[in-house]
């Protein structure tokens, strides 16, 4: 069984600063890390691997320095990893990203299951998973919160859709996207981490593809959307009444009243 885990290098969101007045993102002080949702995807793959003899491959697209996340995935238990990196891949929107990922998965071949995080913390779109499934011609289940049954032919999972939680079954080959609620990702072993730091990460550029990929469909060229500009929104204002320490008693009385006025209105 072969499982692909899609991962992405993202800035450490806690340290990214957003300048409201100048409308810019300052990533200077932020490091990079593996997209947190992708760790849940990897953990799911590793749990499946514990049940069956599966091969887990981490796949990412990004600049050369994104090889760090591939190493990270291997240190956490992935068997192998591939970084898709080429100047021509840059500027990709979700469509071009999904197209390239699907091409790479095709090239890897004989893949049974693709697992992705529900979204990335910098893009926030949650689109790449389902788009990749479409380009691969595979079925998908999004927002998986639980793996119920793991077999060599199919998975049954729980995922919220419409107004409830559904139990769904997906036959291989297929793709799932997973939420944070699914599991607690394991930490890497120091020993593996030290080994993998020295190792070379396999990298594929545009020249490594043959028929699996049309160069017009990747990077900026293959993107259907363009960002015109960005702005950093400032907080909305409302006229407010404030109480501080010494007026706590008064505040409690008044707020309790407000809460109950609602009650009466409601009934």
């Amino acid at each position, binding site marked *: 069984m072969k499982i692909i885990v899609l991962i992405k290098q993202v800035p450490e969101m806690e340290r990214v600063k957003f300048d409201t007045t100048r409308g810019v993102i300052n990533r200077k002080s932020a490091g990079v890390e593996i997209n947190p949702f992708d760790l849940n995807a990897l953990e799911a793959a590793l749990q499946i691997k514990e049940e069956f003899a599966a091969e887990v491959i981490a796949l990412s697209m990004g600049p050369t320095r994104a090889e760090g996340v591939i190493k990270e995935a291997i240190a956490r238990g992935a068997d192998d990893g591939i970084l898709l990196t080429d100047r021509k891949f840059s500027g990709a929107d979700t469509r071009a990203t999904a197209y390239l990922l699907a091409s790479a998965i095709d090239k890897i071949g004989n893949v049974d299951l693709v697992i992705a995080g529900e979204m990335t913390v910098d893009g926030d779109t949650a689109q790449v998973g389902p788009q990749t499934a479409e380009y691969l011609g595979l079925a998908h289940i999004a927002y998986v919160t639980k793996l119920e049954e793991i077999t060599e032919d199919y998975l049954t999972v729980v995922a919220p859709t419409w107004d409830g939680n559904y139990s769904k079954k997906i036959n291989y080959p297929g793709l799932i996207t997973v939420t944070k609620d699914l599991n*607690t990702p394991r930490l890497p*072993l*120091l020993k593996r981490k030290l080994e993998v730091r020295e190792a070379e990460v396999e990298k594929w550029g545009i020249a490594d593809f043959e028929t699996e990929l049309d160069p017009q469909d990747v990077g900026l060229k293959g993107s259907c959307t363009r960002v015109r500009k960005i702005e950093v929104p400032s907080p909305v204002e409302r006229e407010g009444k404030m109480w501080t320490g*010494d007026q706590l008693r008064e505040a409690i009385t008044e707020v309790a009243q407000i809460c109950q006025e609602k009650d009466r209105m409601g009934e």
Partner: protein
Amino acid sequence: MKEEIIKKLEEIVGPNWVDTDSERVISYSREQTNNAYDLVTPQPVEGSVIVKPAGAQEIAEVLKYANQELIKVIPKGAGTGLSANAIPTEPSIILSVERLNSILEVDEENLMVSCETAVTLGDLIEELKKNDKLYFPLHPGDEGAQIGGMVAMNAGGVRAVKHGIMRDQVKGLEAVLPTGEIVSFGGKFGKLLKNNAGYDLMQLLIGSEGTLGVITKVVLKLYPEPKATGTLIIPYQKRRNAFQTVPKILQEGIIPMAIEYMEKEEIEDAAQGIGKEWPSKEGDSYLMVILAEDKEDTLYDKAKVIGEICEEVGAGEILIAETNAEQQNILEIRSHVLPAIADKIVDSPDVTVPRSKLAEYLDQLDQLAEKYNTKIPVIAHAGDGNLHPIILKEEGEVPSYYDQLKEEIYQIAVELGGTVTGEHGVGMLRLKFLPLQLSQAEQQIMWKIKEAFDPNEILNPGKAVVKVLN
């Protein structure tokens, strides 16, 4: 409390800031010690009054008045103390400093921060997040703790191996003496790195547990924020081996930010208590080593050496957390150990021994456990030689051997060159064990200092120091 006292206090701080509501008075009179070690901690008396002054000037007036009328005063911070440090034993003025809660200045040129006394550790961490380069390394535990309280108690906690304890961070201090004078140490701005003018009274006030003065303002050192951090979790089958590892790591010239020790049952309880999972499934006891370095390469070089040392002493598979979220997770679990096990424990002494004696101390603890036919789990800031052996309840009660066991836990520490309190302070809980460590003469000079500051014994009486007769 008499009506005229209340009236006078209201005159000083304003009527909004004096509170005699009996429920709130009791709640202000209690502290974390009452929750953590409820069976052996004194209950506060009723009848105190809470006063919340606006600043040093009002504190001075309250103290002057109290000193004149001989009313006891308990300085009150966040109540996160753990040795019965601020529990009134007779009706007192509970002097809550909560309104002095501003961060005054982050001084990037001098690498220092000035704050009022009630700024919490959490506030400080939050404020420094805005700063790319500087940070405050210590993390004694509860982020609700106030800086003034942390100074008064000379707190230590988890991340003290590399940069030391609170005492090592304070460069300036303002306090109000029990007699009502406002004093400040460390030069006009409290930002001197060298200062030899007279006795170092600032260091005397640090760790004086609110018995010599009320701290109102503190200047703390800041440090360049390390670029690369990582947290190792090292599992062991035998706890002796864990403690053996500590001096070996330091001997290699590796000074981590923290070396913590904990045991499976306690750390899993703590994780569960906050809805998390302890990452290691192996072993019965763990070292948690936090590395903080300038470069990732340096970090891994050191981690590698630590890995080799651990392998020699028979540790299991070492895990490493590198993402902020995962490291934070582990630290949060560690910080939650005490509240998580509060129901199971009677007490947890706070001994420190030289780091080279850790393994030997553990052997003696094991012998004690055997002698009393019990278990003595340990949590420890192992890198500092600071241990908290745990005395467990038996069928929900204080065991009959409690006093004896506790004394022996201290006794063997002192014999190995240790102390009866490494970080939590003397408070009321450890007063009677001070003579194990301090001579008559040493205790007497301490009491003379107390008398010099507080001739009428109004400030936080019955804590930290005792009157010793000739």
